[in-house]
């Protein structure tokens, strides 16, 4: 390879590192002070781009000057900063004390609402932005042409780093932010109004995300998919750098920029995978990231209240369970095709949700990527049937094996972490799986997936398949429930409540968690396999973030501190989704609003509300 080519490749790596850092610095600052991992940071980035493609061309009508271009970019960022303020005042302020799982979900609710709002305001078509006046030419570096705007971007990152350093060390606001990052309660006891500090931080964080988005418009069109694609990259940057560390984010962005620039030459198909592998490798060596510090006890968010007393079925409970099973069994005699489809899917999701709550509610392992194991099970079954021509039975057997095997592989790393880092790593692994299914087109069919995943002839009628799903799903749920009541389940709860004390009485916490993670992955894999045959197809949405969020919404709705609540949650969530989705163009907006409402007013879920009622009676 020519040296000129390598230099240009390195420079473009620096340019993307610079952009990535500007966005990531905002996320890491907000996390440092508020301890909230803000999913909506990607939405702020997208809004920055949309604001800029609206404001900048309007300004350039007056005069095509570079100054107006940059004024437009800064104005866009400022508008986004104000949206960050609105989010702090309306939402974040109410959830600083709730467990981090709920915070993540609530900010993801904002992501969903913004997606539909953007669609409504700017329409579904990508919008190309104007090129920057004065920076439209190319410069020649060792005979290779390199865009001047990219060169300019390379300088933006260090300039922002320098300005942030000055802000953090030379102003009272910055000193207070750094103090609050260590111990925000003490900052309050010294007379600082934390509410103002948090609002200010959100402005700064959203401003930086908006700036990152607005600066992209000469390079990429504003589109409705920008939010999710950037947020996972930015999560990776902040986690590798150490959450809360601006300098760490800068180093991590440099690493990732170069990894992507050169990785694409060597492994063009799996650049995404490379990035996530880097993250997994860093976290294994440095569990708090390059420059991060272990969480101070005072700043640590509480775990969600999990399953406390797993009572065996009482008479009422047993009666309800028997009635539910009986209803499923007689349903095919009366129900139409639509009802049977819904019930089949509810059974599938009930198993997936139950297996997730086995981790979250029982084990305190907040997995944000449970769809990975569901999806991998579906892909294993689907690919065996369509690519190798195997019948349904061995394919259905392969689904839990695939889910369990990948859960064992990923879980080996996951159980080494805790809290928000654990959630981020599960998310990252899910995104690796998603990226492979999305990018490995020859095998997985890429975005379109694979069709023709049909059951064997004997199970091809809706009735029989419903019975098959019911048998597998209820059987697996009962088996998992048995594990939950067995000493193994109690040990997981002990480790959840106090890792140190469990350790001190001789429990091998890591191994127990690893086994639990694997078991839950296998159950989710089985659910995925059953789902693939009920739909007749597989595609990457099965292991996407929204699918993981659906599962989390189900257990949240059902109540994570109950054993059987997740089943109720799955049924309610899926039935409502299936009934409401066709009626509205703004399903995501409604779902987002519903998730936020759930976190704000109903944090114990349906099952929790029932348990509270029973306790009162």
């Amino acid at each position: 390879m020519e040296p000129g080519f390598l230099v240009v490749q390195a420079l473009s790596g620096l340019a993307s590192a610079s952009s990535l850092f500007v966005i990531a610095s905002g996320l890491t600052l907000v996390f440092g002070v508020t301890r909230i991992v803000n999913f909506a940071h990607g939405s702020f980035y997208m809004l920055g781009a949309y604001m800029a493609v609206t404001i900048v061309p309007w300004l350039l009508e007056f005069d095509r000057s570079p100054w107006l271009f940059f004024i437009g970019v800064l104005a866009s960022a400022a508008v986004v900063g104000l949206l960050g303020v609105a989010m702090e005042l309306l939402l974040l302020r109410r959830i600083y004390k709730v467990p981090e799982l709920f915070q993540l979900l609530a900010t993801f609710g904002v992501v969903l609402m913004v997606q539909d709002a953007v669609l409504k305001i700017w329409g579904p078509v990508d919008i190309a932005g104007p090129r920057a006046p004065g920076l439209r030419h190319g410069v020649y570096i060792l005979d290779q042409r390199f865009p001047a705007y990219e060169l300019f971007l390379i300088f933006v990152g260090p300039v922002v780093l320098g300005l942030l350093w000055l802000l953090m060390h030379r102003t009272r606001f910055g000193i207070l932010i750094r103090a609050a990052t260590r111990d925000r309660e003490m900052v309050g006891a010294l007379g600082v109004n934390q509410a103002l500090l948090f609002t200010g931080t959100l402005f700064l964080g959203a401003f930086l995300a908006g700036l990152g988005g607005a600066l992209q418009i000469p390079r990429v069109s504003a589109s409705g998919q920008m939010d999710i694609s950037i947020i996972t990259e930015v999560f990776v940057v902040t986690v590798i750098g150490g959450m809360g560390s601006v300098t760490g984010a800068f180093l991590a962005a440099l690493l990732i920029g170069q990894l992507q620039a050169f990785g694409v030459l060597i492994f063009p198909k799996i650049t995404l995978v490379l990035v996530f592998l880097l993250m997994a490798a860093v976290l294994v060596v440095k569990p708090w990231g390059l420059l991060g510090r272990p969480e101070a006890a005072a700043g640590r968010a509480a775990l969600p209240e999990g399953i406390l007393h797993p009572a065996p079925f009482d008479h009422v409970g047993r009666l309800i369970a028997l009635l539910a099973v009986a209803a499923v069994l007689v349903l095919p005699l009366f129900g139409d095709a639509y009802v049977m489809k819904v019930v089949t899917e509810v059974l599938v999701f009930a198993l997936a949700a139950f297996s997730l709550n086995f981790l979250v509610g029982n084990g305190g392992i907040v997995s944000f990527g449970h769809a990975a194991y569901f999806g991998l099970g579906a892909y294993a079954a689907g690919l065996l049937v369509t690519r190798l021509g195997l019948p349904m039975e061995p394919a259905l057997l392969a689904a839990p094996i695939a889910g369990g095997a990948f859960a064992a592989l990923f879980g080996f790393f996951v159980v080494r972490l805790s809290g928000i880092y654990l959630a981020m790593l599960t998310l990252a692994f899910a995104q690796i799986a998603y990226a492979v299914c999305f990018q490995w087109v020859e095998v997985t069919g890429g975005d379109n997936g694979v069709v023709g995943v049909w059951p064997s002839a004997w199970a091809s009628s809706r009735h029989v398949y419903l019975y098959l799903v019911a048998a597998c799903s209820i059987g697996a749920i009962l088996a998992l429930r048995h594990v939950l009541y067995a000493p193994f389940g109690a040990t997981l709860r002990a480790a959840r409540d106090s890792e140190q004390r469990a350790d001190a009485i001789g429990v091998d916490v890591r191994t127990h968690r690893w086994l639990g993670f694997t078991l839950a992955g296998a159950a989710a894999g089985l659910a995925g396999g059953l789902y693939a045959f009920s739909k007749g197809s597989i595609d990457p949405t099965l292991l996407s973030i929204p699918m993981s969020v659906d599962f989390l919404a189900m257990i949240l709705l059902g109540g994570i501190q109950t054993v059987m609540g997740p089943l109720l949650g799955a049924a309610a969530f899926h039935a409502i989704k299936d009934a409401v989705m066709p009626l509205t163009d703004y399903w995501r907006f409604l779902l987002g609003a519903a998730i936020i409402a759930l976190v704000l007013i109903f944090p114990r879920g349906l099952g929790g509300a029932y348990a509270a009622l029973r306790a009162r009676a």
Partner: protein
Amino acid sequence: MAEAMLEVEGLKAGYGPAEVLFGVGLVLRKGEVAALMGRNGAGKSTTLKAIMGLLPPRGGRVRFNGRDITGLPPFRIARLGLGYVPEERRIFTDLTVAENLEVGRRPAPGGRAAWTPERLFAIFPNLAEMRHRRAAAMSGGEQQMLTIARTLMGNPQAVLLDEPSEGLAPVIVEQMAEAVLRMKVEGIAVLLSEQNLDFAAAVSDRAYVIEKGDIRYQGTMEALEADDHVREAYLTV
């Protein structure tokens, strides 16, 4: 008798299902140093946290300068002129000494000279030499000095001082005693929680003894020192 500055009546507080305070009542008067004595777990730190609003009171009343401050957020209470020095020091380890002081800075109430880093460095000379050092690189005694200096930067009229002598070398304990007496000279009322009778006796005018979340004794420091029965029942380990 000087007029009451901080009045606590029937204060109740706890953590989760555990009740810790069962109606604590005490008074801190203008310009005095009062000690809240008791064994580990008696409720000393919990009392100070509940007064400061760091732990929401579950009952009772707290008045400061005649104003009801029960249940106000800590920053409001701090701004009214009540300072708090936590037991675990809780200095900002990533910040320098000067930056730690900056976090504590609040304007002085009308007419009084504000504390400045220079005035504080005159009282705590060790801090002056390390003003640009990161707080993480300080000894325990130096960190304890810094927490007091940081709270004084807020120009409080009264200070809640939680276990100031705990875990410190004897020579540092002496410096702490001097610091408390210096606050008194400056007209700042101090309510300190303490297990160390010698330390409390050296600096305090009056004493309260707390046991199982209730005030069991109150009187002058001299009277407590003379009362073998109370000392043995509630203080000796």
